[in-house]
């Protein structure tokens, strides 16, 4: 999980926030409330996690509970990977 979080944070800092400062994003920061990501940014994040973690995100999974923070994303990816490996 920790490695997933680090990968996600690095992607968001480099590609969305364009910020070198590691403190610019906390794992628990809500992307929506803090205005970190907009409607197109979320699609970038989804494309990234689909490629990076080799998962497929369904339309009904595009909800804040899955995507709205690094922690939520990491939990979501972890559960998707777990489900995939059981199939």
């Amino acid at each position, binding site marked *: 999980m920790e490695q997933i979080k680090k990968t996600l944070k690095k992607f968001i800092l480099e590609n969305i926030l364009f910020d070198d400062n590691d403190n610019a994003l906390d794992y628990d920061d809500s992307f929506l409330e803090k205005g970190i990501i*907009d409607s197109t940014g979320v699609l970038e994040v989804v494309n990234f996690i689909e490629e990076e973690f080799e998962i497929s995100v369904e339309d009904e999974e595009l909800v804040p509970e899955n995507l709205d923070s690094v922690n939520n994303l990491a939990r979501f990816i972890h559960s998707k990977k777990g489900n995939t490996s059981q199939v």
Partner: protein
Amino acid sequence: MLFKYLSDWADTHTDKILVTQGSRTVTYGEVARSVMQIATFFLKQGVRPGDRICIVLDNSPEYISSYIGVHRAGGIAVAVCPQYSPFEFRKIFNDCLPSAVIVDKKYVKHVLDAVSEGTSIQAIIIMEDSDVQSSSAARSGITSRHSNIRFYSVRDVINTPDCKIEYPVCNEKDVASIIYTSGTTGEPKGVMLSNENLMINARSIIEYLQLTEKDRIMGILPFYYSYGTSLLTTHIIAGGSIVLENSFMYPNQVLDRMFAESVTGFAGVPSTFAILLNRSNIRKYTFPSLRYITQAGGAMSPLHAKEISEILPGADIFIMYGQTEATARLTYLEPRDFHYRPWSIGKAIPGVDIELIKEDGTIAKTGEVGEIVARGGNIMVGYWNRPEETDKVLKDGRLYTGDLAVRDEEGFLKIISRRSDIIKSGAHRINPREIEEVILELPEVHEVAVAGKDDAILGMVIKACIVLKDGQGLDARKVQRHCHNKLAPFKLPKEVVFVDELPKTGTGKIRRHLINDLGAGIGSTG
């Protein structure tokens, strides 16, 4: 005037809900009271007719009260995109010289950073429910540059003591609002709209959409653009309601709200519908109350339009065209015509005359290409402090839109091309020169050209082509980071390529339409 309609509805339907946001509902009566509190506050602060007051707020009940409250005080409401960087705010503050700014606590820092020495701003009202003295948002950014500015909170506004105050008489011709658009030089231009402009355009839209007090629109478009403003004005005049969702990040949430709130209308730009079709559950929903959809802000792909009409068979689809300089709307396509002419922007809205004028100044015949030239009570007063720019587009009371179109034998208009280089990305209109100027600040850059690149979701994304000075090197990421520091996030180039030279005409003008083909695979990103 807008506040007159608001107060009339508040008198007769005090408890009718005007706006819903999350679990919060605000009635006509409550908004009308807030409007009077804000107007009284500003009048007591010495605001005079014609003073500019900037509004830096997301869509919210407070935005509505502030916008109309400024009008009621006789001021000019200048709504500014809250996502702007300090650099962008400064341009607008220096242009319209506001006497006050109303700002959400989230955006205070950028506003304070934008304030220059000798600023015109005398008061900043922070939308935060605490005393200014205890407001961390305010305290964190105040420096000696702000020593002449008075800071207030919402509480100060609400607690303004009642007193006998003379409210100014507002004239139809008075400028009520300035909306900044991308200028031709890279500097933003302020479109001045009068009370009359706002009212006439709104009544016309109400007429063709047949809006009534029973209507309830899903409002996802920002009020600080003309399309969003028109949702606000039309629904207040009609006595309808607005359901607000400030983010389209999670479209399924918006769809849930549309269903739960039984909305009757939905307004979007092409990217809204692209996102709904490609990244939402829209096919699994039915919306029994939804009676119409409007689309403006650029051409929607015919494929998307067809899909939307199939998914939402009960909703009429109105394709619309307009400009901020025309308050919002100039033409619309009747839903019954949509299936036969999905390529068309329809015909002039009620109260607007449209002619197509050829380059030689004569009127285009059927099938001939001409510039869309419009006349009507919705045409702007002019650009703020830019008489020369105004004269270029307003001639004999007619607006020269710069867009080229043809008219068929039945009078339906079709856009052929847009003369300006403006990039339409999502709900935003972006001037490439503004981005070029920022990139040129990098010492390694010799020349740069920015243009829109086609994108399936956003309509366009921004592409920058850079020629470096001899012997210089530059990383695309550094370019994006520099833009990020100076510009709103939606103005960031998604793709940066380095090329040996830019395509130009014989007179040295950049041929932007060729930018798309440049530099594929050469040091590009994104």
